[in-house]
């Protein structure tokens, strides 16, 4: 639009800065959002996006700089004040209360004493108006991630905001759910509301955003019209250099069967968990199988069963290298040449308060007993070889750290993930199972990890990758399977798979027939 430059911005920041200790999370940010525009805030993890919006929403207090609302300086000291000003926010990690109902969750965000049933009616009306159907009496714990996001959106809409901030809204949605969200955003824009859209997905930003501000290391590195840019020029602004292309060249013909899952079922262990039902999966040497799916459909349950954190009663339903393994624990499976990387880095894949070498010993003391332990049954740690292995892994995966052997928790997410993946790759496992290998990891580290997974498959190992990131799935998989409500679709070759087909499988369409777009719409209408 031509007149945007002369119009007073709805929200403007001047030199906004937030300092945590010695870290300048946001450093002199200048940002201007015009009325009625969808403005993208781009940047890698740790670029300062979340810190910036937390200041705009009054959750964090700026260290310096000012915020202007319709040209006038304002001080936003709490989320309540932000809402009163006209700013609504949809958080990345939802700020919902699982034990409460949808209506109660919405009521909490509204000021004053409004009767719960009036809120329920209003929420139902608004949610249908914007095409986001909700049942006000449902408990949040029972809802899918997409439905939870709808609550957040409806909750912010109920306050009639002029600016809505969305923090990584599509990271948890199926492609079809994302399309519906984009329609809602278009509706909001048509009403004259502004949207601040935080993402690191360039394709989406180019599709729906009018302008973009790019952050790197807490500073603005670019302000542009994303439609005038190419994905690689945007990526350069985000990363500050070229992102290495990863290559699957050299992935040979699959060899012998290394993992065979037959009719594996496991009951749900908690009311919030998912039961696995009749899972079938065959993974051969030299193959990367990706398991796509929307979060909370049984991914972690499947990982637990594959890794042996949870054993199944029928030992034969899981065979590793043709040995019944369903009742074996993690260590026994590791001794058979398997390695596992769980999703949660802190507390599951690594102990945050222990240093890297300690974490290395914890996961490999049994499989590499001769290398890492000495003193026979005393099992003393041989610090020399352990330190050398830590160094070797850090060098191989380019783990950036300030000390030789820092506590795992002090590393950034991407660097810790590189170390954890490297720790398992270092022993050249025959079978590797990874859950969400690059969740919350910046683009540079993600491409490094993906290349390492491909290299492992090339060397003749079987790799199972559970991932919600479709870009990643298409980049590295030789076959793709989709998990939905604890059921696994039949793996299909990646070359013949489309995003649309994956989206349908995510929605529960397992049969090969009748998966047109009309059926998908009908399914969503439920």
């Amino acid at each position, binding site marked *: 639009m031509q007149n945007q430059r002369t119009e007073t911005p709805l929200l403007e920041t001047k030199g906004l800065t937030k300092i945590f200790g010695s870290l300048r999370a946001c450093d002199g940010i200048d940002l201007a959002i015009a009325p009625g525009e969808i403005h993208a805030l781009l940047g890698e993890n740790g670029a300062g996006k979340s810190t910036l919006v937390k200041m705009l929403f*009054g*959750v*964090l*207090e700026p260290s310096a700089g000012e915020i202007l609302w319709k040209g006038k300086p304002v001080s936003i000291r*709490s*989320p*309540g*004040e932000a*809402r009163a000003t006209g700013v609504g926010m949809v*958080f990345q990690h*939802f*700020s*919902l*209360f*699982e*034990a*409460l109902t949808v209506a*109660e969750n919405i*009521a*909490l*965000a509204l000021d004053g*004493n409004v009767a719960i049933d009036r809120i329920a009616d209003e929420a139902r009306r608004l949610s249908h108006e914007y095409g986001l159907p909700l049942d006000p009496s449902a*408990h949040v*714990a029972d809802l899918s991630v997409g439905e939870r996001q709808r609550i957040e959106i409806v909750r912010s809409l109920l306050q009639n905001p002029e600016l809505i901030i969305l923090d990584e809204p599509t990271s948890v949605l199926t492609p079809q759910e994302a399309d519906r969200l984009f329609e809602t955003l278009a509706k909001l824009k048509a009403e004259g509301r502004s949207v601040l859209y935080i993402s690191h997905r360039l394709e989406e930003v180019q599709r729906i955003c009018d302008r973009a501000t790019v952050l790197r290391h807490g500073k603005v590195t670019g302000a542009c019209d994303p439609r005038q840019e190419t994905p690689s020029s945007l990526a350069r602004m985000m990363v500050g250099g070229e992102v290495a292309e990863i290559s699957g060249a050299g992935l040979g013909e699959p060899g012998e069967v290394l993992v065979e899952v037959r009719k594996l079922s496991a009951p749900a262990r*908690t*009311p*919030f968990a998912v039961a696995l039902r009749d899972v079938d999966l065959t993974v051969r040497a030299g193959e990367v199988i990706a398991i796509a799916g929307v979060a909370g459909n049984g991914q972690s349950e499947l990982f637990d069963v594959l890794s042996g954190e949870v054993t199944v009663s029928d030992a034969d339903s899981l065979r590793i290298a043709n040995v019944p393994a369903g009742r074996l624990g993690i260590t026994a499976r590791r001794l058979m040449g398997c390695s596992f990387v769980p999703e949660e880095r802190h507390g599951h894949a690594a102990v945050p308060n222990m240093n890297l070498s300690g974490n290395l010993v914890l996961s490999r003391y049994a499989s590499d007993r001769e290398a890492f332990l000495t003193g026979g049954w005393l099992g003393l740690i041989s610090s020399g070889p352990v330190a050398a292995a830590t160094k070797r892994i850090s060098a191989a995966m380019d783990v950036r750290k300030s000390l030789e052997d820092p506590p795992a928790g002090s590393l950034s997410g991407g660097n810790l993930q590189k170390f954890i993946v490297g720790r398992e790759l270092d022993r050249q496992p025959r079978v590797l199972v990874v859950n969400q290998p690059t969740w919350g990891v910046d683009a540079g580290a993600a491409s490094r990890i993906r290349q390492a997974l491909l290299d492992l498959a090339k060397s003749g190992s079987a790799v199972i990758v559970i991932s919600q990131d479709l870009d990643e799935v298409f980049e590295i998989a030789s076959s793709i399977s989709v998990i939905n409500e604890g059921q696994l679709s039949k793996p299909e070759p990646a070359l013949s798979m489309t995003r649309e087909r994956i989206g349908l499988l995510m929605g529960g369409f397992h049969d090969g027939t009748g998966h047109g777009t009309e059926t998908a719409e009908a399914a969503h209408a439920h």
Partner: protein
Amino acid sequence: MDIAQNILLTIMTAATPLLIAAIGELVVERSGVLNLGVEGMMVIGAVCGFAATILSGSPWIGMLAAIVAGAVASLLFGVLTLSLAANQVATGLSLTLLGLGLSGMIGESFVGSAGIKLASLDIPVLSDIPLIGRLIFGQDPIFYMSLILTGGVAWFLFRTRAGLTLRAIGDNHASAHALGINVLKIRYLAVMFGGACAGLAGAHLSLVYTPQWVENMTAGRGWIALALVVFASWRPWRVLGGAYLFGAVSIGQLHAQALGIGIPSQFLSALPYVATIVVLVIISRDRRLTLMNTPASLGQAFVPDR
């Protein structure tokens, strides 16, 4: 007939201090704070209530003093765990030890003094109705307060906006903070309510149940109240059921011992604890419902990241 009424009366009297202390702790835990100092606050309430009664001559003033003393003790816990984010378990245990020691010191000169009983209600005609007269119209004031508290807390938690806010904080304090709710302020209020209730429960012991001061006279009732809250899945009416069950079995086993039944007395003494836990475990076996009612942020310190 009168025997049945008397037995029921003793059961209710035995259950009342447990009920009051547990209802207070329920509110504290629903806000996400675990205060293991119930026993300590109760015993402080008992001694302060007794001392103030002797000094002023009025058990009503004693009761007020007990409530204030319980609240002050809980405020100490609040400052340590909420403002200074100290470990709640360790602080709660210390509060119990402090309470037992401090009450012994305060009460030293009152050991053996004759107490004044908080008078029971006595309405002519109504209190004399056979079987139910004294149960409904002839009990002590703290008994009526315990029922009002239970109903009031149930109504507050599930029917009011403020109760919703309190439950939300217990479920997820970080989200509550992000919504602009003042987490620490509401937790302070909840902790002090719990302290006041524990103090009142202590007053019931030294002003109604046995109107005298004996060192360590709470005899573990604070711990039972804590267990009741958990096994009742943090629901007020279940706490009431648990407290009365405990009271019934403890009175019942006393009568059984008096009758000389051929069961070792140690076993009978343990029976109320076993019975209460078994029954409450059985009714809380619906794991979904239990998880829905469990305050997810229980015991975790909250430090606002501003």
